[in-house]
């Protein structure tokens, strides 16, 4: 077989195939439910109900979507430039650490929130800067270095929580001292369990979209991603663009950790992120790397996770079905997107 580019893909092809990918993922969900001995339609219904069935469920889904919007944006920005940042997990924890360092009494109102957010972004950016400089200077593959840094960072967090950051009132649990009240992100509406991190995530998505579509940097990022050789030939400072992309991407991922600590948890623990950094890759790919699309796919992915937790308790299908479905959706989606641009011919 051989792939042949399609000059003008029809609207049906461009929209139908991604839709088919989602339908195929649902079919896999139903098959997995059958394997687990549950009623497939009931399982789908319980996932939907668990994610959106009540006001509490919707708020839980939006809360879960908040870090995913940030990590999804981080991945979308980087992947657009073909910068393979798989280290959002580590950058997230870098942001979380800064939220604790600056939020436990060093700074007071009104400076603590903006300063700690900025510092978190710088820490996340710095963490990605190393792998990117290794890539541009020495040609070291950033996938492996950013992945390895995730493990190093988790051990560093574990060290902080058992040592310098340990909460003396923590009854032996490895968690940090809690943030002071001024360092906490307030709720958007009184009485509703949804913090300002969600609103900031949406603002971040819009800002990224503006940067990508309305600025020279956005144009350069796309050009470098499409064809670095051509971009270099056109006189573009390719390495400088990659470094700027990295700073943006690492900073966004760090905000995920910062907002989880300042908005939701109020302290740092080593289970702060159940893989938000990795899930961000799925969020970004499902959104076709579009920053505004990331908002929708993050809510969708968060809904699947929240819904699966609820379904698992009710129907007894292991909650890991959510991770399987997300991986399946990712693989179906990249294939569907390819097939919107090429057709398979014999020979």
């Amino acid at each position, binding site marked *: *077989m*051989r*792939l042949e580019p399609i000059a003008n893909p029809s609207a049906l092809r461009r929209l139908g195939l991604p839709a088919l990918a989602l339908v195929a993922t649902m079919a896999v969900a139903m098959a*997995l439910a059958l*394997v*687990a001995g549950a009623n497939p339609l009931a399982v789908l219904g319980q996932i939907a109900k668990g994610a959106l069935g009540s006001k509490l469920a919707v708020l839980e889904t939006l809360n879960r979507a908040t870090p995913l919007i940030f990590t999804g944006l981080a991945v979308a920005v980087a992947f657009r430039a073909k910068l*393979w940042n*798989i280290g959002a997990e580590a950058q997230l924890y870098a942001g979380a650490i800064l939220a604790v360092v600056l939020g436990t009494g060093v700074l007071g109102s009104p400076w603590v929130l903006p300063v700690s957010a900025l510092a978190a972004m710088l820490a996340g950016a710095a963490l990605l800067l190393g792998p990117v400089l*290794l890539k541009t200077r*020495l*040609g*070291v*593959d950033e*996938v*492996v*270095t950013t*992945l*390895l*840094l995730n*493990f*190093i960072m988790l*051990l*560093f967090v*574990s*060290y902080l929580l*058992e*040592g310098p950051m340990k909460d003396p009132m923590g009854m032996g649990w490895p968690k940090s001292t809690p943030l002071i009240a001024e360092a906490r992100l307030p709720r958007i509406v009184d009485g509703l369990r949804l913090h300002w991190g969600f609103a900031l995530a949406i603002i971040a998505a819009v800002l990224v979209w503006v940067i990508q579509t309305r600025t020279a940097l956005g144009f350069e990022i796309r050009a470098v991603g499409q064809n670095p050789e051509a971009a270099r030939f056109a006189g573009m400072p390719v390495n400088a663009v990659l470094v700027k992309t990295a700073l943006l991407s690492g900073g966004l991922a760090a905000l995920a950790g910062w907002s989880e600590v300042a908005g939701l948890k109020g302290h740092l623990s080593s289970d702060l992120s159940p893989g938000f950094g*990795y899930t961000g*890759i*799925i969020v970004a*790919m499902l959104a076709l790397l579009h920053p505004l699309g990331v908002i929708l796919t993050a809510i969708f992915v968060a809904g699947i996770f929240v819904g699966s937790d609820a379904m698992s308790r009710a129907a*007894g299908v*292991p*909650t*890991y*079905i959510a*991770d*399987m479905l*997300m*991986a*399946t959706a*990712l*693989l179906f989606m*990249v*294939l569907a997107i*390819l097939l919107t641009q090429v057709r398979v011919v014999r*020979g």
Partner: protein
Amino acid sequence: MSAVIDILISASFWAAVIRIASPLILATMGELICERAGVLNLGIEGIMVIGAFAGWMAVYQGMPLWGGVAVAMAAGMLFGLLHSTLTVPFGLSQHVVGLGVTLLATSSASFAYRLMLPEVTSPPKIVPFQPVKVPGLADLPWLGDALSQTALTWAAFAVAGVVAFILYRTPLGLAVRAVGENPAAVEAQGLSVTGLRMGAVIVGSGLMAVGGAFLTLSAFSSFFFEMVNGRGWICIALVVFGAWKPGKAVLGAILFAAFDALQIRLQQTPLGAALPYQLFLALPFILSILALILMSRRAEVPAALMLPYNKGER
């Protein structure tokens, strides 16, 4: 310092080094085959997890230990088939597909584990491979202890030899290496680029899964969710460190295992007590990054690595 020397000359230390190196050698050979054929396989981490799980579960269900190895290999090959179908004929991003395969394989293992053992709090144990007594070798004073290893360890070293032999001494190996350097030339010879690359990824994934199964069937006797713990990513670094050559990669794995075995022992010394234990645990990952930096200038990357091949283009 003398504490370190005492460790380094003890037979039990070298026995541990060889034991720790075994799964790394198996999985590194698997990744090396894939990359020599031109395909980066980031599914390795998840494929090791599914291998560890499938092998252990098969033995727990009553299969013999080698049957467990075969089941693990088959599971790995299945995910290799998925990976290579998407990355070779369809030429999709090897980064994205590889991470997707890792997520799918890892979550499949967790899902199947919970489905088959819904109630358990700690995973059941199996009777793992035991050290084999090699006649004549087992009675030697120091060497006998250091080489007191399971059959799966001996198999790991044998696999490395077989991989090196096939890659450098057979027409098939030549074709696999060529397809990672210049696929168009291979096509011109009338060979199938797609077939060679898919075959390499499927076989390589099988070896990765056996590397994972080593953890449950030889090193430990149970399956834990986090047990692979980045070993797959370390193996990717080992392939680079070994300059894509089996012999050097085996040496890299042994060197790496030596550091790992050393850090475990150093933790028990006064020096280890003074430093946070997380520093020792992070050492393998820090070393991997250093290895990548060290080798970056001398790396002899397969020329067509990560470049999909589409017939009729260029």
